[in-house]
């Protein structure tokens, strides 16, 4: 097997993009770490002919959903009311707003769009990652793009 370091070097940025796209910037760091730890744990059992990138993108997508959900469910404890609002987050870029819109899509479209454009998977690989037919994957990608166009298009 190739050393895990080379897997990390080759796919680090793709995994990062999937984490940001799926979980948002705030949760991306946790998602990134959880994804790579999970991949490292399973790596020795990965078949030699596996598609490593699709495998990693699938793991990253799942972990990012888990991390994001876990945080959304966990209320922020607070005994006292803050006297003033916390420092404002850095202004979101246009690109971040677009991915915020992706995160607002129905789950099926959202997953397909994230894997296709943040994970750079081909539609057939998106289908395999989501356990759906290639036709269904293509349809979800097309529908997702259509919704985004309506969402983001200036009036």
């Amino acid at each position: 097997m190739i050393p895990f370091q080379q897997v990390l070097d080759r796919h680090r940025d793709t995994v990062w993009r999937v984490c940001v796209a799926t979980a948002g910037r705030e949760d991306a760091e946790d998602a990134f770490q959880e994804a790579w730890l999970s991949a490292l744990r399973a790596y020795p059992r990965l078949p030699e002919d596996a598609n490593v990138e699709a495998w990693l993108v699938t793991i990253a997508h799942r972990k990012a959903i888990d991390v994001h959900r876990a945080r959304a469910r966990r209320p922020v404890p607070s005994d006292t009311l803050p006297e003033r609002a916390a420092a404002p987050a850095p202004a979101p870029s246009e690109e971040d707003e677009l991915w915020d819109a992706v995160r607002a899509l129905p789950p099926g479209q959202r997953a397909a769009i994230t894997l296709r454009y943040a994970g750079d998977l081909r539609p057939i690989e998106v289908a395999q990652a989501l356990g759906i037919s290639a036709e269904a994957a293509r349809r979800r990608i097309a529908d997702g793009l259509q919704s985004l166009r309506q969402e983001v298009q200036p009036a």
Partner: protein
Amino acid sequence: MTPLTPPSSAPPPGLVERLIDRAADAGLLDVAYAPVDTPLGTLVAARTPRGLAVLSYADVNGGVDAVAEQLAARLSPRVLEAPARLDDVRRELDEYFAGRRTRFDLPLDLGLVRTDFGRRVLRAAAAIPFGETRTYRDVAANAGNERAIRAAGSALGRNPIPIVVPCHRVLRAGGGLGGYTGGLERKAALLSIEGVLP
């Protein structure tokens, strides 16, 4: 608006280092390696949770990436470059080459040495003090079989941790240099550092 550009590209600085720490804490980092620059060229140092397992001359072994591939094949595919985990090895080698260290205090992992006799040969070599030499016959005897001179020589030739396990201190009976995993020039250079050769 299509094509949809992916969100920006690279994880923030420090994130991968934190990941490696967590992997080690979780018992998932089987092999940590890093290149170490020395006056004799680049060495690749690699350790398992048990100790230093490999110190490999990069040039005679095909380069740093090739050494990482050998580590994956022979130890475990869970191999990560983690320079901070080899700080003690780097420091002790620096001190040795600066003439400020005559023995290494590093835990060793001889797991890459397949035979019991091979491990005994390397332990016998590790016991030779700085600045002294022994013959191949001496080492074979100290490993428990003084007639196994050839086997001792081949175990020393496959020493995975040269310098720290000082196989360079083993010479032919007549004083000839014999062989060396990193090339005879390096053997001579190490013996010069130790004052055995001019």
